């Protein structure tokens, strides 16, 4: 299978010589096309730093990140923005929707900054919103809709540009369990039917159990890695819990 993302000996240090924190300490892994990968770890394990490095929001100290064989650690300025715009889609914990725009306009914005023509924009937005079941709230403002709906709007915005890779940072973090479930089903749909490649960071085993592979991180290093294979979600969930226990049980929030 084709490699979408290749992470090669990635290191990220904070602080200075006398007080050095190794947030990421030599991590390497690959993500192939059509995969749904979850990265798990406790608070402070370095998972969000990892995601920030991949999304080019943060700079790496050493190592390489290759997206479709292009080394993004070498990109600068507007090329970085262009990379983010064209190759990546984002889903954030706190939705990051623009509160002054309607749901429709929020989704359309991702396309309009790519200079897609307005007719095409309308078509694609209504298509994706049908698939994510948010057609009826398109004309509402973020403050008028629920958290789950907001996150699905954010999903639609992330996916509407057909990105190579969708990055999700604790997407269920601010949702109640019912909304979380609905969102994760949307993710499954994106992954199965739309063939989107998704990389999700979470500390929640239930959320991670929707993925096809889970990578565990501890103290900035890859600790373990398990594949779902042909297991059903319940069995995979149990496997994840086992690893979490092994990790030291310092993962709170286990359902």
């Amino acid at each position: 299978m084709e490699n979408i993302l290749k992470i090669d000996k990635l290191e990220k240090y904070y602080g200075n010589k006398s007080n050095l924190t190794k947030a990421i300490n030599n991590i390497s892994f690959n993500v192939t096309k059509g995969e749904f990968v979850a990265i798990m770890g406790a608070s402070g394990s370095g998972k969000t730093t990892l995601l920030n490095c991949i999304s080019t929001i943060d700079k790496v100290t050493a190592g390489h990140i290759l997206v479709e064989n292009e080394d993004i650690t070498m990109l600068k300025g507007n090329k970085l923005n262009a990379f983010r715009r064209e190759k990546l889609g984002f889903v954030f914990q706190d939705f990051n929707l623009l509160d002054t725009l309607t749901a429709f306009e929020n989704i359309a914005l991702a396309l309009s900054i790519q200079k897609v023509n307005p007719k095409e924009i309308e078509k694609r937005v209504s298509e994706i919103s049908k698939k994510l079941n948010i057609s009826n709230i398109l004309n509402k403002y973020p403050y008028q809709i629920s958290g789950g709906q907001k996150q699905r709007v954010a999903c639609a915005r992330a996916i509407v540009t057909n990105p190579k890779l969708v990055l999700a940072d604790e997407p269920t973090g601010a949702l109640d369990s019912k909304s979380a479930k609905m969102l994760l089903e949307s993710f499954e749909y994106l992954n199965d039917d739309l063939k989107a490649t998704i990389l999700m960071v979470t500390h929640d085993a239930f959320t991670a159990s929707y993925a096809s592979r889970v990578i565990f991180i501890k103290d900035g290093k890859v600790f373990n890695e398990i594949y779902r294979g042909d297991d059903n979600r319940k069995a995979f969930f149990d496997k994840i819990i086992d690893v979490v226990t092994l990790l030291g049980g310092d993962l709170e929030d286990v359902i």
Partner: protein
Amino acid sequence: MLYKLSLKNITKSFKDYAIYFFTLILGVAIFYVFNAIDSQTALINVSKSTHELITLMTNMLSGVSVFVSFVLGFLVIYASRFLMKRRNKEFGVYMTLGMGKWQISRILFLETLIIGIISLIVGLLIGIVLSQGMSILVANMFEADMTRFEFTFSKTSMIKTIIYFGIMYLLVMIFNTFSVGKCKLIDLLESSKKSEKIKMKNPYLCIFVFLIACAFLGYAYYTVAFKPDKMLQDEFMTMIIIGCVSTFFIIWSLSGLILKIVMSMKSIYYKGLNSFTLRQISSKINTTVFSMTIICLMLFLTIVILSSSLSIKNSMTANLKELSPVDITVYKSLNIKGNDRMGKPYTKEQIDDSHIGVKESLNKMNFNTDQLLKNVVDVNVYDADTLKLKDTFSNIIEKVKIEFPNLDWESKEEIIKLSDYNKLAKLYNLDTYSLNDDEYMIIADFEGMKDLRDKVLKNNQNITILGKTYKPKFEECKPGYLYPSSNHINTGVFIVPDGAVTDEMKTLNILSGNYKDENKENVEKIVIGLEDNSYIKNTLLNFSTKISIYEASVGLGAIVTFIGLYLGIIFLMSSAAILALKELSESSDNKERYDMLRKIGTDEKMINRALFRQIAIFFMFPLLLAIIHSIFGIIFCNYILQTFGNQSLLISIIMTTVFLIVIYGGYYLITYFCSKNIIKENR
């Protein structure tokens, strides 16, 4: 501890405070400069009469200063309320830590005190430097020579500035204390979380309100600009109120409407960041309709005040050359009886004296016209009982009476013999005329009255003097005047054939001429010396010399210009500062939004362009409306000031534009760069 906290707060939020600080300093500096003018002018070499004018000006300026301090006070309170709002969360944190409201008030008190003291000191220093240049400007305006240049410092102006601004800052402190007292902890902590509710106004209601407001505004424009002569005093106030109210409603409706219109133009709305930019602007204007209205009106006032005052100054200087062709003109009422114009009875001495002419009167004061003057012309003005204002309008009097109820229809018209007028005209370099025995003509240069008389002349209005009837030679009034003045104020003089009037009808004697002496100042001094002659009290002599007209006119022009500049700059500064503060105080909130735009991959260029456009539209919106207002406002001012002539309107409009671009544009650029700095990615 609290002191340390305040100091840290100020340095920390300097980005937010910068423009507030800048405005305060500018305000203090300008306040000082305009109040320090009298000490600056002490060094300038001017005549006594000019000096009196300068004193008049400084008195007027200090009166205007009171008004200015109200405007600045409003600005300071508005700005501090603004900055307070932004810090709600901070105060909330203080309160959860157990700090009392009183302590928070004290922090604010200290902050205001520190800012106040620094801005006063810096502003005064800048003001002192600027006011050095002011003396050159004053000398230039009054066309006087600078005898010497010396560093001056006005203690009174400094004390005044400190007192006025001290009161302002004190008010801010009181205001802050009150608003902290009213706060609730929950509101403070939640204030940033409260997502702004976007209310879309009903588009049909917007269109309806917009059309009605436009109609009212159009009506006010029409009345003020095209029918000003028919407007009564209280009607003028009504027009102003209509203007203000409809401005408010136009801004209210447009803020909703523009968004709706652009939204329907999908190809524009969904291009780049347009949708984002438009929403930003619309929400901003939506929440500030009231202050937008005030800003718009202030800009309107600025433009009108600046351009009118500059044009008054310019056209006055231009008029002088045309209207003061001779060195001296002396005139005197003859054959007076009863009361003077103010209704005061004439004294017996005055009545007795009014039988002799100007020349004899001057001789009585040892002013020998033959020795001192050359090119002397001595003419008389007559009046007739059969030629009152109502008689000269008899054809159309009913119509005119309705339009101009205030004219004094019983006043007698001025009449002059043709030969006398031609003598004067030759001296003044005006056109001379000839008339048949049964013809008359009118000279006038005061626009409003000239138009009216033209109508009558077209109507072939005949007049009767001593039983003989005369018909008009021309269909309009010809330009001309009997005695020099600084403006076009001749409302109409009838020229008739020489035989039409008799000596008994004399009412005024005019003597015009030039000084013989090469050094005009020498004779001028003698003329001014006549004021102290004991004879002058009981005679009705009126002097008007070229030099005195010139000085008065230049002085008046300068006064108007200075007051115009003072008010214009303060208004312009205040309105630009409010806009800048509003924009900047939101930039920090907007930082999140721009960060988000970056996260989804927007180009830095695109973001900067969006920001530039957004601020530009925000600044242009009230300005555009103000410019439209000003077009009609200036037309109206021109009507009021038409005695001053309007040859130089273009120059003054260009000057006004320069002021606008420098001050308003300057604030715009500062705002843009500051907000760009605030939303910059911090890496």
